[in-house]
């Protein structure tokens, strides 16, 4: 049973109103289910279930009732991407109904006091400190927080992250407990991972084998931040992994072992990537681009022109777009588009005349054939951008 303070008990009994009661019920039930001992305060919440495409009408009615109650989030809370760029709604070619439904959802979250960050990389906007407790949904951000930032979060869903934001706490289980954050499977990689999309392929391969087990990965030679971002996003797509570890004290290395070679990666690559002769769209930005990725895209594009018959879309947060303005201008002058607040997976690109795409994101390659009914080919950021340009 989850131990509750007197005040938390009053919240559960409904003394602070329906909305706080229902949020508290969610946290206590999940806590009971996963054997949490108590609720612990969180540094921030990150809420998924924002795009009208993934949310649908059902959720809107729940958000309406919450907002009507007048409740506000207690912990700082951020939002995942929506179905279109708020400043360029026409790019996604959405119907009037979908545009309005999306705007309505965003207004409801705003009424609840949630920040309109609309990004899957909230850590580029405000980086949480090490060793703080978070309640984050968006699986790629969960793995990044636990593995790269050293913050602590379970793999929340949209509703549980929202409940945590309202209460300002999360049940203490899983990734919040040191003993459950240790590696369970030793992974040795013997393959040449030259660029970030290869790390993504490794993630897709491992995710299927690991389920929700935490891997200790050996054999990655000084990986870059963006490579770890791709690895984590992919691990969380094909698996339920919440954390990976790159180094662990040799006294506590796990017994179970997996080795990965070139051949495994080749097989996993051919599972998610097809030959696309001429992509309709070249897409960079899953997860959303960092400042340094925007800068690199601009340096490749400098002095070049994007071909007339292909679209080059770069997705990032409005915050990063603002801070990398000079590079954004180079990309747009070359004919690319830097989109904010959205991502292609949570929009209806298949209805915007896009049947095939080239990307550096293994997560996109894993989801887009089902979520968007498009063909996907995987390549490095450099290859993607160069392919979009006139020769």
């Amino acid at each position: 049973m989850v131990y509750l303070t007197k005040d938390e008990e009053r919240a559960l009994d409904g003394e602070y109103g329906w909305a706080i009661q229902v949020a508290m019920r969610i946290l206590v039930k999940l806590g009971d289910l996963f054997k949490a001992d108590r609720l612990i305060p969180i540094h921030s919440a990150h809420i998924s279930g924002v795009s009208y495409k993934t949310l649908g009408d059902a959720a809107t009615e729940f958000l309406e009732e919450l907002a009507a109650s007048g409740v506000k989030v207690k912990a700082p809370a951020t939002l995942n991407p929506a179905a279109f760029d708020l400043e360029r709604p026409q790019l996604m070619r959405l119907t009037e109904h979908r545009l309005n439904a999306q705007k309505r959802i965003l207004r409801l979250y705003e009424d609840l006091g949630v920040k309109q960050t609309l990004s899957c990389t909230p850590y580029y906007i405000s980086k949480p400190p090490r060793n703080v407790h978070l309640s984050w949904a968006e699986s790629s951000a969960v793995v990044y927080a636990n593995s790269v930032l050293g913050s602590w979060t379970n793999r929340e869903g949209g509703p549980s992250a929202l409940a945590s934001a309202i209460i300002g706490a999360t049940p203490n289980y899983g990734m919040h407990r040191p003993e459950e954050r240790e590696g369970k499977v030793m992974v040795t990689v013997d393959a040449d991972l030259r660029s970030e999309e290869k790390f993504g392929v490794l993630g897709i391969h491992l995710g299927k084998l690991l389920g929700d087990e935490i891997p200790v990965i050996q054999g990655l030679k000084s990986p870059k931040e963006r490579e770890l971002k791709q690895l984590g996003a992919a691990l969380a797509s094909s698996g339920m992994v919440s954390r990976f570890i790159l180094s662990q004290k040799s006294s506590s290395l796990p017994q179970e072992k997996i080795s990965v070679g070139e051949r495994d990666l080749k097989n996993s690559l051919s599972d998610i990537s097809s030959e696309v002769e001429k992509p309709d769209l070249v897409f960079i930005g899953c997860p959303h681009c960092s400042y340094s990725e925007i800068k690199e895209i601009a340096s490749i594009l400098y002095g070049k022109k994007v071909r007339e018959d292909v679209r080059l879309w770069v997705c990032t947060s409005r915050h990063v777009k603002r801070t990398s303005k000079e590079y954004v201008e180079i990309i747009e002058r070359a004919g690319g588009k830097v989109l904010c607040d959205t991502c292609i997976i949570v929009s209806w690109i298949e209805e915007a005349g896009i049947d095939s795409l080239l990307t550096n994101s293994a997560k996109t390659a894993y989801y887009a054939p089902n979520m968007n009914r498009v063909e996907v080919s995987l390549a490095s950021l450099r290859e993607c951008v160069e392919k979009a340009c006139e020769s």
Partner: protein
Amino acid sequence: MKKIILKGRPIVEGKARGEALVSSTPLNLLKGVDVNTGRIIEEGHDLRGAVVTGKILCFPHGRGSTVGSYTLYTLAKRGRAPKAIVNELADPVVVVGAIIGSIPMVDHIDLTKIRSSDIVEVDGEAGTVTVFRRI
């Protein structure tokens, strides 16, 4: 009339009695259920075409997007929800949905002991499922 009492784990309080609708396939609440009609629309699902409204809905566990929880809320609000939910293993998506939809729920139940059209009583406080079957 044969009476079988199954002991499980209480998840969401409340009591309900009704006709069982039993599936051996995990259910995707977001993509799999039409909130206007209560009909299961998930492709390849063994209950595709069946209506959950007023039934004791029995399935192994949920799957897919976490925002599927909201489906149970909206079904309840439109009077289209199942009367109770029985799972083999409760997962967060279904649990949160049952809480916000105020739908009694019990898990840790062997679903092979229940057949569609059995009359079933669910007690969400005691964690029991009582099956009444004509013989």
